[in-house]
């Protein structure tokens, strides 16, 4: 069973979730995390890069490629296998934690 204690902040969770489909650059991650969280997670740039540094250090994200767009550098980040496993485990943990409450609501409502 996945433990109830989270090892991931909400921002980290949505950053990893944003990268599940394809590598993204900084602003791409901010936009996708915002969309996927229904606008709840609004990552500031300083927060995003702090989280990316930690994720790279932990081996959950790697640099995928670098491009130059309109004279500005753009780095794309890719989720690793370990990163994919970590975010899926977190999703299961959240699901189990939610079920504790939704199950009771269902019983009380019945």
């Amino acid at each position, binding site marked *: 069973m996945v433990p109830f204690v989270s090892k991931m902040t909400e921002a980290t969770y949505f950053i990893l979730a944003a990268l599940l489909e394809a590598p993204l650059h900084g602003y791409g991650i901010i936009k996708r995390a915002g969309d996927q969280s229904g606008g709840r997670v609004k990552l500031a740039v300083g927060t995003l890069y702090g989280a990316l540094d*930690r994720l790279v250090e932990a081996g959950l994200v790697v640099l995928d490629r670098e491009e130059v767009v309109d004279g500005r550098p*753009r780095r794309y980040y890719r989720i690793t296998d370990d990163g994919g496993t970590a975010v899926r485990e977190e999703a299961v943990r959240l699901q189990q934690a939610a079920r504790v409450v939704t199950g009771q609501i269902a019983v009380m409502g019945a």
Partner: protein
Amino acid sequence: MSTEAALERRYRSLLRAYPKIYRDSHGDELVSTLMEASDPQAGRPALREAFALIAGGFAARARNARPEGVPWWADGLHLGVLAVATTTFALEISIRSGPIWDALDRPVWTLGAIVLMVAIIRGWVWLALPLALIAALDTSRWLFLDGSDHGVLKVGPFYTSVGQMLPYWIVVIGLAVLAVRTGKRLPTRSWSWLLIPALVWVAEYAVPIYGFLGLKHLFRAGVEVLALGVVIWATVAIRDARWALAAALYLIPGLTYFGETLLLHGRNAFAYWGVLTLLVLTSFVAAGRTRQRV
């Protein structure tokens, strides 16, 4: 200057919060993302972005200060020994106002203290350890010799309480552990650590009011609370207990002295030591809670 150029210039100013090495490798990338994420009409950074950049810059500095290949506990021990040595010598070198060459009460002690602090900063454990041992034995002479002169150096201050002698022994024990440790050698620490004794000595020498009306204690308490707040922040940023360990080493002698002289203190002293202890405990809790978080 266009609005966009003004905004970029302001973002680049905020990026000074980050260490230079980080700015060199990520600065342009951060500016690129910031410009994409900003309102095209805005000439100033949003408060939220500005705060996140300052916080992110501090976190990057804290992460950047970690030496590669040195375990957290050894790094924390090194930091703790340095904090104890610099603050102890800052306060235990007596300075009198007057011509500077007459101002030092104990020139040999002062010279030894400076060499010891420099050796700790440079990570020269085998030079620092004997110097620290001499200082510890000298200041603890009351324990061994009833304070009488039996050929002991007697170059340092004379103490009669364990709490006053303890900082010197903490430095000795910390350095001894670091000396027998195997693995990568300790890094050179920032020379700005020497600002602690330098500023205190200058204040003692040049600001006569510094010694009066409890101003010294009030100032010290303020700096300590601020510094321990920064320790908590750094702990959350790097997610291990190296700074908490250093802070605990710093606190131990003071708490011991406070315990020895408990009956002499009033409510203010209890509040002061209570706050410092709480801040150090909080930094350990923060390290434990964030240790495995990403």
